[in-house]
């Protein structure tokens, strides 16, 4: 179990880098979840299904329309976001005045439906999606071989995460959003269309999941179950970071990617459970999460 001494610094570097790459996915996904929770108070349990849908939309665009990876990176999130907006208008908007529980259950049901439908039409084995030519190959870093695509994943996720954080915490639009969560009536009285803002926010959060899905398509198998188990892990990331904290979700996403990466070296069997152990510990010691605001 403790082969600590057998591990050279080079290998450790490699593993940390891989952890960071995985953390990139956690960060983008948990960011979307945190945006939705922070601003809408909805626990979006269909986030994993929407991530899967992003990957599938990219695959469909390529297979049926011939649209490649780069346009898909913009188009697929837009499509997934639009589907999310329809969901928000038809269903979620009726639940804002109720307990969290109902939003969670509704989106859980939606996730079951989406996964079931994709499974019916595309089977379970998954669909191939190739790495775009511009990013194939890789760099030899000395301590490891880093595929170009993985490097791109880190860059893309950092850009998106920082952009989102900046927009919500540092711009006027973000200020309106945050104000609307605190007091929708008052913000509405200032002439701002609050329901529309909330609708677009949900669409944006969902689009982030779709974006992560497109990023994942070339390296993970595009199949209907790809987001099914991921959702509770990402959810745990959000809880550890502090529910609704944008910065918390981002930092925790990368951090847990690293911790999980290290677990994979020292005690690989436990790498899927380590996040829950951390969550239990954090909740016991600091219930509002690492970056949560105390209420």
């Amino acid at each position, binding site marked *: 179990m403790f082969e600590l001494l057998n591990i050279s610094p080079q290998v450790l570097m490699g593993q940390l880098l891989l952890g960071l790459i995985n953390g990139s996915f956690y960060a983008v996904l948990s960011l979307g979840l945190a945006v939705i929770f922070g601003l809408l108070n909805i626990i979006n349990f269909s986030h994993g299904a929407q991530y899967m849908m992003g990957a599938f939309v990219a695959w469909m665009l390529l297979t049926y329309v011939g649209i490649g990876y780069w346009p898909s990176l913009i188009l697929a999130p837009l499509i997934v976001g639009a589907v999310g907006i329809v969901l928000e208008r038809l269903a979620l908007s009726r639940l804002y005045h109720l307990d969290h529980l109902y939003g969670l259950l509704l989106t859980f049901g939606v996730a079951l439906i989406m996964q*079931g439908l994709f499974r*019916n039409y595309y089977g379970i084995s998954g669909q191939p999606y190739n790495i775009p030519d511009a990013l194939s190959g890789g760099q030899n870093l000395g301590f490891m071989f880093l595929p170009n695509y993985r490097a791109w994943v880190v860059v893309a996720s950092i850009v998106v995460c920082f952009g989102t954080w900046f927009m919500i915490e540092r711009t006027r639009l973000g200020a309106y959003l945050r104000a609307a969560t605190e007091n929708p009536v008052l913000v509405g009285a200032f002439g701002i269309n609050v329901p529309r803002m909330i609708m677009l926010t949900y669409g944006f959060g969902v689009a982030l999941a779709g974006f992560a899905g497109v990023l994942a398509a070339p390296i993970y198998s595009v199949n209907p179950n790809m987001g099914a188990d991921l959702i509770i892990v990402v959810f745990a990331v959000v809880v550890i970071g502090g529910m609704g904290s944008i910065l918390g979700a981002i930092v925790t996403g990368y951090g847990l990617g690293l911790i999980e990466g290290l677990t994979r070296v020292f005690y690989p069997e*436990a790498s899927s459970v380590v996040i*829950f*152990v951390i969550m*239990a510990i954090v909740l*016991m010691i600091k*219930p509002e999460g690492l970056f949560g605001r105390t209420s």
Partner: protein
Amino acid sequence: MADTKPKTVGMPMLHKVIFAVMLALLCVLPFVIYPVFAMKVMCFALFAAAFNLLLGFGGLLSFGHAAYFGGASYVAAHAAKVWGLTPELAILTGTLAAAVLGFLIGSLAIRRQGIYFAMVTLAFAQMVYFFALQAEFTGGEDGIQGVPRGDFLGLISLQDNTALYFFVLAVTFGGILMLYRIVHSPFGQVLKAIRENEPRAISLGYQVNRYKLMVFTLSAAFAGLAGATKSQVFQLASLTDVHWSMSGEVVLMTLLGGMGTIFGPLVGAAVIVSLQNYLATFGAWVTIIQGVIFVLGVLLFRKGIVGVIAGWLRRPL
């Protein structure tokens, strides 16, 4: 303190009638539908009722009840198969194990509230799942197979489906009546008071956390009773019962039937288990239909089936 507690009221006539009719129907049932299926429904009805004790009457949403249900089913299966205990002792052992587990996890979880409480229970349930996957005696993903059905009290053989059916009926119906008793006891009244207004209950001098821990442990124990019984019916214990989706399923059953009602979880469990059983031929549509039920239930029938009926009758059910 004893004097300040509300008086325990006897079981209302309506409930007596429903229980009696239910028991009568259940006695005829094995001759109408397949007994093993009926036993499965009863096990899940007890599981949902146990969960409802915590959610509906204690106001605590656990997202990790699979741990007690599945944990007990492993312990009971192991007890019957390896230690050679008789069915009732095996079930008792499983229930006890679930109660202990519930007490340990509960004592940590009750310090948190709302969604955080749910996440703590989920976290521990994931650890239990991990343990079940890793431990030697659970047989990994093969599970514990071929658990003998054994002899009740070492005397009456439960090989026969009908004999086993009445044994399971006695256990689950007894369990449900006990839950009813708990809900309508002074203890249950205090729980309701805590659920409605925790600060007020504290100011009235109740040690809220002690009550919460107690209800959590009881709920875990009854969930364990259900799981342990299920392992004797199906003669196996497997990872399905400890997986987090099982925790989700019991929430679904309780909500569909009507949370906080006496009969709701029973109805919800019956509906969901029947759906899974009779829709099995439709393949992937099972999950889609379940999803649709979730969505429609949340949008249209938030009180659940029994909750809606109770609204019509204007009586608590």
